[in-house]
Structure formats: C-alpha cells, structure tokens
C-alpha cells in the first residue's frame, strides 16, 4: 500500500507540475484589431451619426469597477436600459469589486481573453499596449469629446500619454471649487479670548498658546488641543489634507507633483519661476521644521500627531477639542456636525514676503483620467465611442448617467435649476450615496461635466455655501505655477514610483523626528547629504523634463 501510495503521490505531484507549466504556456488568441465590418446587405454595422448606433445587434463585453455603494447591477441601471433601447447595442457586464480591481485588471489583461471595454482606473503607461488609441477616432465618432478637449486642453493633456496618444477618456466631475483644502480655526474660542484672526506665524503661535492656557471652551479643564494632525496610514501617500505637510503653506511652499492616483500626487516638489525644486531641501523648509518643533515642544501641538490615525484624530475633533486644523472638503469631516458651526475658514499665515500661499487642485473637481478604455480585442471601437458620445453629448443624458432618474436622486426646481433630493430615499437604499451610485453609474461612470453643468445645480445647503465662500476667499491666493497633471514614459514612471516611495518614507520620518526632537544646522546638513544619497537630483530632473514638456504642449 505504501508503495502504491508513494507512486500515486509522485504522479500527483508530476501532474500538478505539468498542468501548471502547460497552462502557463497557453499563449492565447491574437487580439482582433478593430475594423469596420458590414452587415449582410453591406450597410455599415456602425452608423456614423444618429440613432440607433448599430444596424445589426452586437454585444459588447464590458468590465467595470463596481462602486462600493452600488446595490444593483449595471444592467439594471436606467441609463443602461435606455441606452440599449436607443442604440441597439447589447451589453454584457462583468462587475469587479473595488477591492479586487487592481489584481483583476492585471489578470484580465494578461489572460488574452479581453473584454471590449474596461471601465475603471488603470495605470496607463504600464497597460497602454492593451488598449486602442482613440485620438484619431474622436473627430468622427465622439465629437463632444473633441469639443470638450478644445475647451479644456489641460484635461486632454492630463489624459495623453507621452507618445501623443489618448488611450482613455476620463471622468470629470466639476465641483466648482479649486480649493478643497482649507485652514479652519475655532471662532468661538477666539471670541471667548478676544483674539483676532491670526495672520502671521507669530500671531498663530500666540493664539495657540492662548488656546492651551486660557481655557477657551470654558470647562475649567485644560483639555484643549491647539493644533492637531495625523499621518496617513500609507506613508507612501502624502496627499492627506490633515497632515502636517499642509502647514508648509505658511512658509510659501507647497507639496506638488503628479505621482499616481494611489501614492497621491504630492511628491515634495514645487515649481517656481519655471524651475522645479525639491521642497525638503529648501531653506524655507528648515523654517517650517523649526516652527513646528517649537509648537510641539511647548505642547501646542497634539502629542499624538505622529502616531495617531485618522479615527483617533476625528474622535478628538468630534468632541470639539481641536482649536486649529487643516482639512479637506467640509469641516464636518473632522469635527462632526455638532461643532462645525464653531469653526471658520482662515487664510494660511503670511510667509516672509507677506504673501499667502494656497495649493489649489489642478482640476476644479474630481478627475480620473483613465476610466473609459477600449481594448485591442474590440471589433467595434467606433460603436463604443459613439456610445460614449451618446451618453455625454446632451445634458439630459449626462444627468441620467451621473445622477440618475428625475425625482429619485434629483428634481427640477421652479427656476429651472436642479436640486438633489436628500430627505428621503426609495425602498432598498439607506444613504444618498447608495441611491446615486446604484441608480446611475455615479462615481464609477465615465461622464464628463463642465462648469455650465455644475451651475445648473442649485446650492442650498449652508454647508455648501460655506464651501463656496471659502473658495471665493481663497481665490486670489491660489498658487498659479503648478506642475500640470499628465503622464510620463513608462520607465520614468516606474523609476519615479520607486524613488517617490523611498523619498516619502525618508521625509515623513525626518519630519517626525525633527519636530519631536528639534532641528539644528548639523542635523540639517546630514539631511541634505541623505537627500543626495536618495538621488533627489535625478528625481527633480525627471520632473523638470516633464514640466518643460507640459509647458510646451499647453502653450
């Protein structure tokens, strides 16, 4: 029996081994190139204009990244049902959960069994070979895209790869505001202590000191936290608005870069007078470290700042304990709805030259460049592009695809404007986000808006009004010289990803240590030496090349 068993074990192992080798070698079919086929009576399958889009029913396989709040399937969305009726195209949806998206993307593209379109974020320099360039087809089949890109060249540039081709169409959600990140301070505390809004770092220091010592929340306990921040869990992502990095604005510095959607766009570089410089080796960064370490050593800065996570920070905020902080979006995200009225937006402190510096977003809203992609296996790319155009060229369709059906998520007001319906939700949906992202393609879709679309929505919520006011007050101070969003060569992108991770790891650690233990000239010298070892020079050079090219293209 043992001999038999050993034999069967051996055979089993050999078999498994062989299977894995063989299936690894399965090369798969050649991808079909797009072509214009004709129907039996030699009418073109795809119509260049008008509806239906196809003269003969075709089925297109679509792979989508499912929004986490989407409760139904894409096939059931009203916009899709309407599209199938009107265009004649039938869709077959493969929905992938967000958390598996990256892996499945790689797996699908490597498998040679490609769908016709892939809808979801992707790192295009790496995957470009799997997708069709769209630029030459836009004029004929997606005129709205052409028109939109003419109006917004920076969006076209951001989606274009260095070889000049456009391999995807983006999702653009204009929110009318270039300055989501803001500085907030507790007005009630200021009033209680009869203090003015601080405008210089000196004044801020005094205010924070008063916050700590003079019990502005009047509860006879020294529980106030003058300033608090937290570090993003992923130290490779320095985009978090509530991190200490936002405080460099007080010194005339910003954290710019192009990065990628997952490590964030902040790469510790900055453009000034046409040159790209590395922020952490600038003199002003030294001033920043000196100032923050002073705050820390005097207890004006949360002791947990370099250790706590998002939720600890918010727990303190929600108890109204934080006097001054930086944030993104609405104050509620930090202090909750109970305390948000106590806070007002202020400008960052003036730097040495007396200027306020604010880092805006480069596109005034949400933007994902790589959303709508047609694979090399698609036989009817023209049909897909026409579908895109159909979904985006009229306001009604854009609204249907991005927000859903009338009187569910939105309604028309008497003055012609649109308002969101947030008071009640239909059966099966417990939040607005669920409703919107289920009954429309929501934030997983591929619609593009511009400012005119945004202005169709009426702003009634006091919170939104506050948000707009902040945007207005910040406008004059938004930094103008920015590194435009866009794509770089694959190898440069990969190098940048590696260097960026290493640099950010080092800088994050260096900042924490300097603030906690203090900074002096000799430690600074060591730091400069370390940056040399990290090959910051190459990092900045790569950025300078990119920046120069971008300026050329966007002239």
């Amino acid at each position, binding site marked *: 029996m043992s001999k038999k068993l050993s034999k069967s074990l051996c055979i089993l192992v050999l078999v498994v081994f062989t299977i894995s080798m063989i299936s*690894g070698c399965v090369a798969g079919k050649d991808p079909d190139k797009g072509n214009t086929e004709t129907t039996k009576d030699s009418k073109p399958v795809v119509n260049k204009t008008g509806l239906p889009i196809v003269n003969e029913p075709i089925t297109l396989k679509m792979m989508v990244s499912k929004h986490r709040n989407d409760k139904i399937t894409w096939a059931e969305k009203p916009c899709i049902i309407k599209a199938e009726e009107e265009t004649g195209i039938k869709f077959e949806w493969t929905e992938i959960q967000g958390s598996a998206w990256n892996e499945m993307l790689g797996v699908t593209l490597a498998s040679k069994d490609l769908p016709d379109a892939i809808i979801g974020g992707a790192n295009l320099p790496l995957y470009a070979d799997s997708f069709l360039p769209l630029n030459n087809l836009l004029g004929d089949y997606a005129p709205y895209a052409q028109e939109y890109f003419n109006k917004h060249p920076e969006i076209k540039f951001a989606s274009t790869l260095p070889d000049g081709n456009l391999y995807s169409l983006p999702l653009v959600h204009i929110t009318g505001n270039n300055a989501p990140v803001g500085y907030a301070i507790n007005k009630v505390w200021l009033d209680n202590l009869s203090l003015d809004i601080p405008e210089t770092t000196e004044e801020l220091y005094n205010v924070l000191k008063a916050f700590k010592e003079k019990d502005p929340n009047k509860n006879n306990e020294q529980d106030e936290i003058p300033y608090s921040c937290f570090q993003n869990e992923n130290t490779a992502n320095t985009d978090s608005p509530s991190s200490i990095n936002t405080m460099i604005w007080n010194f005339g510095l910003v954290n710019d870069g192009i990065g990628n959607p997952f490590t964030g766009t902040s790469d510790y570089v900055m453009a000034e007078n046409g040159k790209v410089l590395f922020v952490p080796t600038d003199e002003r960064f030294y001033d920043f470290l000196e100032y923050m370490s002073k705050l820390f050593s005097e207890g004006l800065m949360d002791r947990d700042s370099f250790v706590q996570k998002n939720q600890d920070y918010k727990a303190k905020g929600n108890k109204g304990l934080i006097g001054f902080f930086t944030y993104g979006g609405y104050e509620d995200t930090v202090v909750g709805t109970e305390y948000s009225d106590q806070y007002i937006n202020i400008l960052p402190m003036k730097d040495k030259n007396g200027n306020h510096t604010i880092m805006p977003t480069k596109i005034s809203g949400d933007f994902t460049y790589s959303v709508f992609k047609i694979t090399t296996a698609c036989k009817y790319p023209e049909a897909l592009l026409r579908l895109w155009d159909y979904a985006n060229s009229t306001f009604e369709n854009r609204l249907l695809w991005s927000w859903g059906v009338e009187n569910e998520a939105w309604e028309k007001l008497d003055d012609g404007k649109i308002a969101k319906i947030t008071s009640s939700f239909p059966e099966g949906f417990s939040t607005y986000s669920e409703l919107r992202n289920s009954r429309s393609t929501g934030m997983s879709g591929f619609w593009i808006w511009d400012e005119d679309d945004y202005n169709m929505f009426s702003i009634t919520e006091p919170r939104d009004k506050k948000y707009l006011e902040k945007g207005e007050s910040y406008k004059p101070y938004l930094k103008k010289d920015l590194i435009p969003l866009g794509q770089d060569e694959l190898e440069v992108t990969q190098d940048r990803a*590696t260097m960026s991770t290493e640099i950010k790891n080092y800088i994050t650690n260096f900042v924490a240590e300097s603030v906690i233990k203090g900074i002096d000239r000799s430690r600074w010298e060591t730091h400069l030496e370390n940056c040399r070892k990290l090959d910051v020079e190459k990092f900045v050079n790569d950025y300078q090349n990119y920046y120069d090219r971008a300026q050329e293209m966007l002239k």
Partner: protein
Amino acid sequence: MYGLQIAFKNFTPAKGYLGSDWVGFKHFNKFFNSYHFWTLLKNTLFLSIYHLIVSFPFPIFLALVLNYTPFHKLKKITQTVTYAPYFISMVVMVGMMFVFFLPTTGIVNVVIRSLGKETIDFLGDPKMFRHMYVWSGIWQSTGWSSIIYIATLASVSPELHEASIVDGANKFQRIWYIDIPSILPTAVIILILNAGRIMNVGFEKTFLMQTASNLSRSEVISTYVYKVGIMGVQYSYAAAIGLFNNVINFSVLLIVNKISNKVADSGLW
C-alpha cells in the same frame, strides 16, 4: 513557477510572459543599490530573528502548563481563552494596541503618568517598535501555536508516565525526561519551518503599526514592496524582490535543516 521569470523581464500584461523584454538582473540590482536596501534587510531580519527566538519557547511552555493544570475546569477555560486571540483580525489587534498605548489617552500611559513617570511613546519610538511587534505577536499566537504541542503531549503513552511514577519520578522529572523528548521532534520541525519564513515579516501587521516616527525600524521588505508596487505599476520589480526573499528563505531553511540533522538527528529529510 512559470511566472517566476517576470523577475527577469520588464513585464507588461499586454506583452505577456513570453513577449516581455528580458532584462536579466536589472531589477535585482536596482533593489540592492537602493537607498533603503540595507535598512530594509536589517529591519526584516532583526524583527524575524527576534520573533523566532523569543516566541519559540512560549507555546511549548504553555502546552506543558496546560497539560499539568490541576483543576479540569481551569484547564479547559484557560485553554479556550488563550487560543482565542489568534482569531482577532490584524486590523482590530493593532487598533486595540493603539487605543491602549496612545501617548495622550492610552490607558497604559495614563497609568504610567499616575505613577509619576514620563509618557512613553510606545507607538512612535523606533526602539519600541520591535518589542511591541514581537510581544503582541506572542500574546496573540501562543495559545494557537501550543495546540500542536498539546496534541503531541496527549499522545504520549500514559504507561510511560505510570512507569516513571513507580520509579519515583516527580512531575518536574517527568516533564524533563518524558514530555520534552516527546515534543522535541515536532518542535524541531516547527523551528526549521519557521526559520524558512525568516524573510516573511508579515505585511499587514507591520503596515498597520507604522507611524511617521518609527519608520526607521518599521519599514520592512514587504511594506516596501507594497508601496513601490502599488497598483501593479511594477510587477517585475516586485516579483524580483519576492524572488530574492524566497531564495533567502529557502537557503536558510536548508542550512537550519542541515544543522538540526547533525545536532538533533532529526529534520525534514
């Protein structure tokens, strides 16, 4: 196994395995020459070896204790309770650690301050990182790891024990002469297998425990690979590092196995 070759190529999914360009050891060189390489290696190995050596005796000790615990109820309850922490997910485990050890509000520091001492930055001080990592790991997995030893002890022939009692052995002696030798083969195998994991400092726990101030000790190879390879930007680079890891692991295993064969006359083969 076929997929291992991407470590030597510039893999893009479109080109596939066979079509991607061959680059030889480029990725390996890139990794070895990177600024953080030695720090990563050091952090990974120190953490691993510390954990390996320190955590090794605890499950054995616990198994022996449970074996000889006098009251049946106590034994059963202790056994069940000590095995429970293993099931706590890493997110919750580290979350709890943060709740307990946070400088300002953590209960541990509250107690420390009430005793008149200074706050200890358990979570931020790089020097504390290894201890926090290893000891929390011991807390969490000792009960679970002791199961195999408990089972082995349970299989020791009771007649051996009876015989030794007749010969006048007390419990200490029985442990030394009967129980430990019976566990020894299993313990050795487990030690060898764990040595073969020496480069695998787990990603999830380390990542969750990283804070801005402890990075100099808490950045290990697995977290580095995650950050560098996010979104699959660098399949090949990540694969190369992974291969490097596995080669080291395997070599260590072979060495430890050889040693144990010579010394304890038992090993994997």
